[in-house]
């Protein structure tokens, strides 16, 4: 199976990533794109990661998805650095012979990414203030549903 994990500052081309997942034998490609929400007063998100550990943790999550569903391809691209409202943050894609595995693996990947990969978001507001985003219990609960 093709596994692609990328942590980068640059934007990604979702169309090109979906095309890359159209592998021999694939009958369905599931995908999710996370975007910086334009909530009032937000100037930008600053996304920090732990070089080395982040790649390892994301790869481990992708391998868990591959062990659980019959995937032919899986892609996780997570951006870091300075991200303005409306910009892409994360791309998750999963390809399989059938839609159920593709859709479920996509949801699993994004749920686990939120709770188990070392990334941290800081919100910089137009007012000049900034604040680190707090972890949400709801995200933890969503990930636990897969256990």
């Amino acid at each position, binding site marked *: 199976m093709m596994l692609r994990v990328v942590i980068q500052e640059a934007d990604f081309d979702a169309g090109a990533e979906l095309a890359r997942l159209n592998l021999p034998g694939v009958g369905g490609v599931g995908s999710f794109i996370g975007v910086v929400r334009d909530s009032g007063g937000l100037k930008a998100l600053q996304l920090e990661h732990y070089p080395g550990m982040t790649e390892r943790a994301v790869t481990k999550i992708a391998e868990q998805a591959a062990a659980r569903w019959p995937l032919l391809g899986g892609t996780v691209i997570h951006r870091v650095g300075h991200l303005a409202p409306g910009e892409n943050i994360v791309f998750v894609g999963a390809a399989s012979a059938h839609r159920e595995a593709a859709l479920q693996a996509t949801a699993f990947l994004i749920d686990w990414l939120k709770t188990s990969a070392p990334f941290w978001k800081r919100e910089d507001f137009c007012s000049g203030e900034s604040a680190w985003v707090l*972890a949400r219990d709801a995200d933890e609960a969503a990930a636990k549903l897969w256990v």
Partner: protein
Amino acid sequence: MMQVLYFAWLREKIGVAVENIAPPPEVDNVAALVDWLRARGPGYAAAFADEKLVRCAVDQEFATPDAAIAGATEIAFFPPVTGG
């Protein structure tokens, strides 16, 4: 000698991203290391004031407070993750 890394607001409170430390042998797990670091100064005390808000990795694997640190080369402290 081990390298300690701090991320997000822990780094901001402590004022450094990476440092080399040589704790005494009795500092043998993550919880003991947190206590030892806390005594290094007010920035550390502030960063580790609420242990529930601090997560740890030993050699790039998530670790609990009772995890052994003997022989570890890289220990990281950071807040609960907020990616995705």
